[in-house]
């Protein structure tokens, strides 16, 4: 008996992803580099950098899609893990400013004006790039492990889990806003100059960061795809469909939820890590309740439960925002909210769902019957209870 073969839609997804990765990785940087600046083909430094930011968000969205789209556990606190990653990197970048700072002190500016005389101890690991890099991944991962362990082991589910993660986002926002936290308070961390000797204002550095982001997104996508395609990935979907059955098949659902929550947190940290040097600032406003909710909207718009959907949703919604806020800055929250309502009520499978339907119609005309892919015809003597369906 052969294992079911890779469905056609999966192969198509591979093709689309490979194509998209090629465009993002090679075509866009070349369009930035080669054509003359006044050519219509030219992609400005600003646009490339903006794309880099969107792709960071796509990594964040992939994580949420794993836990929400596949496993059915809605986390409204992904912004917190993104923030941990971003702040860890931001702390490293802040310490790299050195004597270039406004006050010429070795301490970050905000410490000078809040009368902090010595670098707080928890800042020390971020003096090195390795500290900042590892911190950006490990802090969210460790935090998610502890938080997830407590929540999932206590069988906190559904809307209750959503609410406590939202409370977490709010609490984190409050903590990061305080000057006493020594993370720059409301103003956050900004005015970064360089990392590993590369000037952040140099277009070449930004191009490099963009390319790193594309590579990280590809890696994140492949990791998620590997998880989703494995048997454990099927367990995640099974938990969403019938957690009770999963329990009575000998699995321990909460451990799977914890695993995927931790992976999502790691991806969020990676996203924050790449975001900060490209955007140049991280403040508590980017990690609270609203940014966490926005991730949910991206995934819903793109199509939850499909990895492509998460990426597409993150890029499309953020691109839409950057365009529309130029024309109607006031209306954006209403557009975003409206979009969410329309998607949830009319297109529950999001953009990917719409695209799939279009392709499915084309497939139907040429597709072989379902039995052709089946393993073997049922033997004539075997009972065939399915024959008499009413």
């Amino acid at each position, binding site marked *: 008996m052969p294992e079911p073969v890779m469905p056609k839609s999966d192969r198509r997804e591979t093709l689309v992803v490979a194509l998209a990765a090629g465009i993002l990785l090679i075509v866009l940087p070349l369009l930035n580099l080669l054509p003359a600046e006044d050519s219509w083909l030219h992609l400005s430094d600003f646009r490339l950098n903006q794309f880099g930011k969107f792709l960071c968000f796509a990594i964040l969205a992939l994580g949420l899609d794993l836990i929400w789209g596949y496993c059915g556990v809605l986390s409204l606190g992904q912004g917190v893990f993104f923030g941990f990653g971003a702040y860890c990197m931001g702390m490293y970048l802040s310490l790299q400013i050195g004597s270039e700072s406004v006050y010429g002190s070795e301490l970050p500016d905000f410490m000078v004006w809040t009368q902090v005389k010595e670098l707080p101890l928890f800042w020390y690991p971020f003096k090195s790039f390795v500290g900042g890099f590892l911190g950006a991944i490990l802090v969210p991962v460790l935090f998610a492990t502890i938080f997830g362990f407590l929540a999932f082991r206590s069988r906190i589910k559904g809307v209750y889990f959503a609410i406590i993660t939202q409370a977490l986002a709010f609490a984190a926002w409050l903590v990061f806003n305080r000057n006493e936290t020594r993370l720059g308070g409301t103003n956050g961390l900004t005015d970064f100059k360089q990392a590993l000797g590369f000037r952040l204002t140099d277009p070449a550095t930004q191009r490099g960061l963009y390319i790193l982001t594309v590579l990280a997104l590809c890696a994140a996508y492949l990791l998620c795809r590997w998880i989703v395609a494995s048997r454990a990935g*099927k*367990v995640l979907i*099974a938990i969403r469909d019938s957690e009770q059955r999963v329990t009575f098949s000998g699995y321990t659902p909460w451990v799977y939820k914890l695993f995927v929550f931790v992976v999502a947190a790691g991806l969020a940290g990676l996203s924050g890590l790449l975001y900060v040097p490209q955007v140049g600032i991280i403040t508590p406003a980017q990690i609270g309740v609203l940014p966490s909710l926005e991730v949910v909207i991206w995934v819903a718009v793109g199509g939850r439960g499909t990895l492509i959907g998460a990426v597409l949703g993150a890029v499309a919604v953020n691109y839409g925002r950057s365009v529309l806020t130029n024309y109607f800055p006031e209306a954006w929250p209403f557009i975003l909210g409206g979009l969410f309502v329309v998607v949830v009520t009319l297109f529950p499978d999001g953009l990917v769902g719409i695209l799939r339907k279009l392709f499915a119609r084309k497939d139907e005309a040429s597709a072989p019957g379902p039995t052709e892919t089946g393993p073997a015809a049922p033997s004539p003597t075997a009972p065939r209870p399915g024959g008499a*369906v009413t």
Partner: protein
Amino acid sequence: MTTDNLILKCENVVMDYDGFKALNNCNFSVQYNELRVVIGPNGAGKTTLLDVICGKTHPTSGTIRFGKNTNLVGKNAEDITKLGVGRKFQAPSIYGNLSVWQNLDLSLKRASKGVFPTLMGRSTPAERERIGETLETIGLSADVHTRAGSLSHGQKQWLEIGMVILQDPSLLLVDEPVAGMSDTETEQTGRLLQSLAEKHAIVVIEHDMDFVRQIARIVTVLAEGTVICEGTVEQVQADNHVREIYLGRAKVAH
């Protein structure tokens, strides 16, 4: 150690929900390779009995012996499943967004069901063979790739039975398998359960008396949380106490 030939022995099991005793000193036992049907009016405690055996709920008091000397009381559902108790729920509980094959593949008994072995696991030819056999048994061979959510109600019930079989349980608990099925489907389900009873002990809860007559060898009547009568269908139907509290009421209800 005991020497009787029982796979399951529930002794004085009490399930007390804030003063309401869903099970009240219930004594119930099943032999190896026995197909036992449990009947009883609504609220008699039938489903609760299955729940306390499989670990979905924990009884207030009493012991539940499984096999020679394992006490199931206090164990959690995953462990009880691994010991060899399979549970089929009343409403079909399958994974609607996975294919029939994937539903069965996840349910197959394996050495470890932890995250990392499951992440790395690939099915072996022997495992695929097993799943193929089970597909034949439950009559879904032609639907391997079908999304389980789009199966008919009856097929979903068979799929779940198949999923439970693949866990290699020595005791199968089946809750109202034919509710909502057509007559033909009901009959086919009966045959399926009878063929399974050659290898497993099965406890079936059922309301449909025609179905009970088709499959039952020994029937246990449950009322108000205790066993009031046990015997063949004829014996049970002839019992005055049973007529009074169960069949009588059922007649009125019809």
